[in-house]
């Protein structure tokens, strides 16, 4: 049962990703992105990452996507047909390289997981909390990774100031 749900979610993710790229109108692309985000969030849940599931829904699907939709409706761009691209070399190169990338990534990852050299990244000492719980996540975030976590606030601040400066009418 679990495998079936996993496969369905995976198919949804891939299908909606293709939709993002192929839809001519950007409003459809945005909706497809929403599908993609939700299916990925459910995949996270299936992989026992409850907190990331919630964060994905809140931040991505809730905040970022709304921002995208807002800009799409504000600018109302005209549709485009990617297969009527004037730059043929660009299109051919992109498709070829994309395919090569896919093969290398997927092949490399499958090889790594199944038949590759056995590598051991198992934790030195098991954490105090069982894997996947918010406690385990929080313990990692606020002890070992405290400095990167604090630095993200700086990133956000810079982004905030930058967008204000960009958005100001001169």
């Amino acid at each position, binding site marked *: 049962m679990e495998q079936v749900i996993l496969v369905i979610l995976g198919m949804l993710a891939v299908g909606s990703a293709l939709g993002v*790229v192929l839809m001519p109108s950007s409003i459809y692309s945005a909706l497809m992105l929403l599908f993609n985000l939700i299916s*990925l969030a459910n995949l996270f849940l299936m992989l026992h990452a409850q907190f*990331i599931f919630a964060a994905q829904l809140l931040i991505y699907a809730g905040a970022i996507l709304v921002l995208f939709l807002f800009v799409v409706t504000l600018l109302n761009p005209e549709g485009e047909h990617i297969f009527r691209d004037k730059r043929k070399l660009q299109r051919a190169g992109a498709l070829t*390289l994309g395919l090569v990338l896919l093969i290398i990534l997927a092949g490399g990852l*499958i090889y790594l997981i199944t038949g590759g050299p056995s590598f051991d990244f*198992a934790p030195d000492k098991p954490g105090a909390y069982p894997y*996947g719980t918010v406690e385990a996540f929080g313990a990692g975030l606020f002890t070992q990774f405290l400095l990167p976590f604090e630095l993200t606030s700086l990133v956000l601040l810079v982004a905030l100031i930058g967008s204000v400066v960009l958005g100001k009418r001169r």
Partner: protein
Amino acid sequence: MTSITFTLVISAIVFAVGTVGVLLRRNPLVQFMSIELMLNAVNLAFISFSGRFGTSEGQVFVLLVLTVAAAEAVVGLAIIVAMFRHRRRIDVDDIHAMQG
């Protein structure tokens, strides 16, 4: 095929699709959405490996990626709006002032 192998393959596919999207689309909005796709694919890979090794480092990293993605989206969209205000048309191929 274990569930982790499966999600890793999904992440590889989504990443490749996102890459192609960035390169093919001329609408910067959709290019940004494709970049979000790529970031999400990476997140999925992080979560998968995190689950395989049973540590929460991968999840912490995903949270950082989420934040950076949010910052990047905000700045990127602000640039697009500024660009639109300047030209009344958004097509990345319109901007080629650096042509040699």
